[in-house]
């Protein structure tokens, strides 16, 4: 197998330039998809037969929740690569994922809570999925806290990478243990979460939203990763050339 692409990708100046060129290719389609998905979801899709128009929160809630999990996975994979190959670029990638993931975890939690109020009559119940998402937020905060507590960027990268890898093992474990826990204690009857029967006119905007959020995530990561690369490479010659230009 030819590994040159891997090394090329791992070279900071290369990724710095590539990321800069790619950003618009993700950002504009993301804007388009999100606008279309929102229009489809809020205007075109028919109301749900049970929840009426309340179900439309799904078009912001589900993509946010999806993004929060995807960002964590990316972060852990990047962190593992950084640890194993001592690759600065991978650490820069992991560091870029964390704040985005944390913010969208907050978004998923808040929109979920706003949805919960009309559906369950309260903003919060200890449902397994909710609880797991809350624990995910704590994991993100721990990661960010550890990173900010360590002065030296190299050390911060490597220490937080260990945490990200340990944490990713934990996410599914938490998810299933929480499920098990709640199925044994009888669950409050208000919240039968089950999948709403969803029809194509409802599903299509949602799928477009998923695509839009994914593209948005990639665009955000690419913008951030350039800054992170600069922070890690400040003594390299290519930086002065790029900055002077």
């Amino acid at each position, binding site marked *: 197998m030819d590994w040159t692409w891997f090394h090329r990708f791992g070279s900071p100046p290369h990724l710095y330039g590539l990321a800069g060129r790619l950003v618009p290719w993700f950002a504009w389609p993301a804007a388009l998809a999100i606008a279309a998905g929102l229009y489809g979801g809020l205007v075109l899709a028919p109301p749900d037969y049970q929840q009426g128009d309340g179900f439309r929160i799904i078009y*912001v809630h589900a993509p946010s929740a999806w993004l929060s999990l995807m960002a964590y996975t990316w972060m852990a994979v990047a962190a593992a690569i950084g640890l194993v190959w001592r690759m600065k670029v991978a650490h820069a990638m992991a560091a870029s994922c964390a704040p985005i993931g944390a913010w*969208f975890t907050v978004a998923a939690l808040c929109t979920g809570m706003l949805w919960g109020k009309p559906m369950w009559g309260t903003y919060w119940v200890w449902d397994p999925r909710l609880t797991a998402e809350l624990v995910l937020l704590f994991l993100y905060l721990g990661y960010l806290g550890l990173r900010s507590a360590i002065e030296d960027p190299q050390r911060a990268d490597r220490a937080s990478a260990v945490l990200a890898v340990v944490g990713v093992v934990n996410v599914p474990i938490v998810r299933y243990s929480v499920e098990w826990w709640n199925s044994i204690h009888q669950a409050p009857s208000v919240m039968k979460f089950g999948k709403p029967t969803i029809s194509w006119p409802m599903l299509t905007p949602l799928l477009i939203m998923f695509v839009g959020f994914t593209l948005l995530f990639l665009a955000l990561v690419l*913008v951030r990763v350039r*800054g992170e690369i600069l*922070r890690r490479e400040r003594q390299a010659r290519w930086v002065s050339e790029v*900055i002077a230009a």
Partner: protein
Amino acid sequence: MSGFLSMGGYASSVWPAVALTFGIIAWNIVAARRSFAAARAEARRRIAAGDPS
């Protein structure tokens, strides 16, 4: 239009949720650009000061 805005009685949930999500998206865009701009300004400052470390 007012029917659309009232969201079939769920306006008080749907609109805050949408606003919040887009607020967070906007903030993320601003924060990402700021983080990059800060790193670049820092690099520029160091180069101008001739400080290689």
